[in-house]
């Protein structure tokens, strides 16, 4: 009787090892490359805006498409912090960065802040939930750069 039980358990475990392990490794490495790719898309956009000093609708559309094309659906927020320099009343000056809605024209010294958030869970995250009942945080990254032109 125990022999049969062990046989069934053996088959189940063999399945988990043979099918589960490659699945885990595959989804994880996909996740890693996805995260890196999205981060690279973000630096790409920031570099373009920093060097050219403008952000067109085409560039925005390309960016939105690019971040969602690496695995999961992503949503992005692009914020412009306008540089404002005022006298501080004591002979010096004070620099502040003011959040503005207009992100079509950029001045030198403005800061572009790009935040990308995942809408969906990735395969590896779902697997992690199924296997260990852990709910890892969704992808969220912020990068910022200063406009040079």
């Amino acid at each position, binding site marked *: 009787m125990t022999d049969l039980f062990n046989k069934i358990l*053996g088959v189940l475990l*063999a399945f*988990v090892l043979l099918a589960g392990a490659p699945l885990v490794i595959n989804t994880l490495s996909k996740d890693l490359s996805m995260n*890196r790719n999205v981060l690279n898309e973000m630096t790409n956009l920031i570099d373009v805006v920093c060097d050219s000093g403008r952000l067109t609708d085409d560039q925005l559309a390309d960016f939105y498409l690019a971040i969602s094309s690496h695995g999961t659906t992503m949503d992005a927020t692009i914020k412009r912090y306008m540089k404002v320099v005022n006298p501080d009343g004591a002979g010096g000056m004070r620099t502040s*960065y003011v959040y503005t809605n207009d992100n079509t024209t950029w001045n030198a010294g403005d800061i572009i802040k790009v935040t990308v958030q995942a809408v969906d869970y990735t395969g590896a995250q779902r697997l992690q939930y199924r296997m260990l009942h852990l709910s890892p945080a969704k992808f969220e990254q*912020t*990068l*910022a750069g200063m406009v040079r032109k």
Partner: protein
Amino acid sequence: MSRFFGFVNMMVILFLGALLVGYMNYIQKEKDELERLKLSYAADFATDAGTMELLNTGSLDMDYTDQGSFNLNPELALDTFLSVFCLNYDMQPTEENKALMKDFIPVAAVATFDGYYVAQHTLVRNGGGPYPETGASDSDWDLAFGMKLPYTYERSGDTSKTYALNMGLDYSLVLQDGSLTKLAGLPPNETGAAMSRIEARKYINDRISQHMAYVIDETNRTSPYWHNRFFIPSQLTNIRGVNPIEGPSFIVLVQGVNLASVRPISGFSVAGTRIDQARMVVAYRRPAGASMIKYYAFADQLPANYASLGIALDEMFTTPRDAAEQGYYYDAIMNPSYPNVP
């Protein structure tokens, strides 16, 4: 037979356990690696902004008689670095957040024309008591730039003279017996021959990186986990022999950042700029028939008697692209080598 299967199953369960441990480890590594990449991007963006701010200070005190000479304000660069770095971690650039970021920077340096500044954590305010701070005598530490230090160089054979190099590499200063004199060209090197420009840059580079390494070692003196060495490579590529520090540069080491990762991570960034001479483009209006047409040409191509030709000057630009953006056309007449279209 039953014992055999039991043994096999036990092995399989062991493997499964190993798989789970590996899985958790991999996830940790993945997060770590992503945060490292992000930190390096953040440090790069922030140092780029800092260098830009260095050069946007309005007056660089540049002079045509002294090539490559300029003045920089290191505090501005650090402040901009901190602002951009804060925003990279989704924090508002307030004084408190900037102070938090300063804790992650053990050392920063700004290399200027004839000297460099090194920022390190120093005691800025002491609450009246003796130096080892206690609860009664509170003291404040801050990341502050020190005095400007020259790029000094001494020949090992002849220590009576101390030379001060600069990035222009056209002249150097000699300090001997308490008098300072200006020396045309570069000082002799260790073998006595005239120093090459590459050698001079190497000395400048070594000087900064040695000082930074010293500050880092001092900061980490009490930390048993600090085993790394710090150096700035004197050559980045062997194709052009590019030296990282050959113009105004801003160098920052970010250490022990634990904002987004469980384990503290470190990063390093060098941002450099170059002072270059621009061939200025002059924009003007030239009469063509009855109307005035907007043209641009290089400033040296414009004839001296331009006023008698009816040319009215408008503006100066640094690149033809900037002039074209403002609606000025290329003036073929002013350029004799422009191919004449029949």
